[in-house]
């Protein structure tokens, strides 16, 4: 007699996911790119590449460079703009059932609001992730997401323009992640996600030129996982809204670490490039772990860290 399969369902605000494993923005295109290799409807949610109001070109090449246990990218948020996105990708997404989260950004606070208001009218969009933390987009010399007031205003403004679930995505290069998490909660966020890529740089020592056309970029992949676990743990301890953990997931192990630290859901990023079906393996691995540990619901795993002193 086999045990019933564990319950993997989790909630992000009003949005219920069939399982906690999403794919991270910018690493899975808009859906069709991987649809021939992956049964995308098995995913907890699909987070599409960052979208702003206008079509955007992005950075020059080289846009990425491989480093120890990771890569640095400076794509520069190219995209078709919100209307282009709706026109080109919503018809495809309508042939699928996976929850869709649109990652949005803007050059002004107002632009975030405009994009949110436009997507509020699109039924197929389930939630908005607010990217205030892309290392390749700046406000003065530092990014939007490192200024508490800016983050608060963006979240508040978007909150006024949409009833959909909103998920600010925090910057990792701040000293006090809990403070930013609390600001987002206070400003009306339904959940928060972290971490975005970590500002980084590589230089070709033979030419003495930066490896990226944009000079600097964002580090992702296994290298940043331990940094992400700490920030997710801190953030989850500081707020009562759900936290979505990401950074360096390559198997169920890292995803489970995030959930033990307090994440309600997780997102797989860079690992999609080397193994397109890794997210499905992560779902199966979490289910297997829950069964093995006698847990009937994934909610028993979330925040189950044992901090007793040895």
């Amino acid at each position: 007699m086999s045990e019933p399969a564990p319950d993997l369902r989790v909630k992000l605000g009003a949005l219920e996911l069939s399982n906690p494993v999403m794919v991270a923005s910018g690493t899975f295109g808009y859906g069709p790119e991987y649809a021939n290799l992956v049964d995308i409807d098995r995913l907890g949610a699909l987070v599409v590449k960052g979208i702003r109001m206008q079509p955007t070109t992005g950075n020059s090449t080289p846009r990425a460079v491989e480093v120890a246990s990771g890569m640095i990218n400076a794509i520069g948020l190219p995209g078709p703009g919100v209307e282009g996105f709706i026109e080109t990708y919503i018809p495809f997404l309508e042939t699928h059932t996976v929850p869709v989260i649109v990652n949005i950004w803007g050059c002004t606070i107002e632009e975030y609001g405009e994009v949110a208001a436009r997507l509020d009218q699109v039924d197929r969009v389930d939630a908005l992730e607010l990217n205030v933390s892309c290392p390749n987009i700046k406000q003065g010399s530092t990014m939007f997401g490192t200024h508490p007031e800016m983050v608060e205003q963006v979240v508040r403004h978007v909150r006024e323009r949409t009833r959909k679930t909103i998920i600010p995505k925090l910057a990792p290069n701040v000293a006090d992640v809990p403070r930013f998490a609390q600001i987002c909660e206070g400003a009306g966020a339904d959940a928060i996600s972290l971490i975005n890529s970590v500002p980084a740089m590589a230089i070709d020592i033979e030419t003495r030129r930066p490896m990226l056309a944009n000079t600097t970029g964002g580090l992702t992949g296994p290298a940043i996982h331990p940094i992400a676990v700490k920030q997710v743990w801190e953030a989850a301890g500081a707020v009562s809204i759900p936290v979505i953990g990401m950074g360096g997931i390559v198997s169920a192990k890292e995803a489970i670490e995030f959930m033990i630290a307090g994440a309600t859901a997780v997102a797989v990023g860079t690992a999609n490039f080397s193994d397109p079906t890794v997210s499905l393996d992560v779902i199966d691995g979490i289910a297997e772990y829950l069964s093995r540990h006698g847990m009937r619901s994934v909610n028993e795993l979330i925040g189950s860290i044992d901090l007793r002193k040895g």
Partner: protein
Amino acid sequence: MKTDLSKRAMRAERAVVTRHELLYGEYRVLQMHVPAVARAVQPGQFVHLEIPGLDDAILRRPFSVFKADDAMLSVLYKPVGKGTRAMTSIRVDDEISLIGPLGHGFPTSHDVAKPVLVAGGYGMAALYLVACALKSSGTIFMGGRSAGDILCVDEFEAIDWDVRIATEDGSRGTRGFVTVALDEYVAGLPDAREVEYFACGPNAMLKAVCDRALANDQKAWLSVDRHMGCGVGACLVCVQRIRDPESRNGDWHWERVCSEGPVFESREIVWDDDE
């Protein structure tokens, strides 16, 4: 040209290595049993390989398909960097994760009066399926630093292609860049406009072919090499500047080498300043 054919055929497979050996100079051939992919390959397409034992490196590497039949697919490579050096340790019977076939390759089904292939490095392998697929045979110009960089001559001669070789050190064929031999050849033709180029090799070679195609009003299909992340169009790492078709003032947009490419017609490409 840009159908979604490759898209439909794309699969992730575990390929079993059936052969792995030195073929020419430092170049090795890696042959894998992977029928579903091998059968679907079009000339100029590539596969994205996960290289075992790559230590702390996390990305796949793209390789043009050298040969493909109903069961086997092979690629040709030279150990130059981290990935290709690690590849040399692959053994027969090892399993390798492979995604393919990927990208839009060379057009080969139309009538080409005078097909001219121009190849450098692994391009000599990448163009072999093009030569096989074209309705009539033609001339292939191969360029390299020295004799050890000239590959696949027998293969092309076996299918009746005229092989012209140029090496920078003169150790095989004409001395100098491949373009010298190419220019001579084209100058000797009654109608240069009959020539249609199919090129794969270093950027400088592609650009040289592009210049000639523009000057002589010829078509030139160029296979571009860009560092890749996903290989399937999702990450936007591999982009190439492409001229807006309607624009008269040099407007351009990015296309993905892994998806819309790697083959572009010479007039489409907007070259970077340092290329």
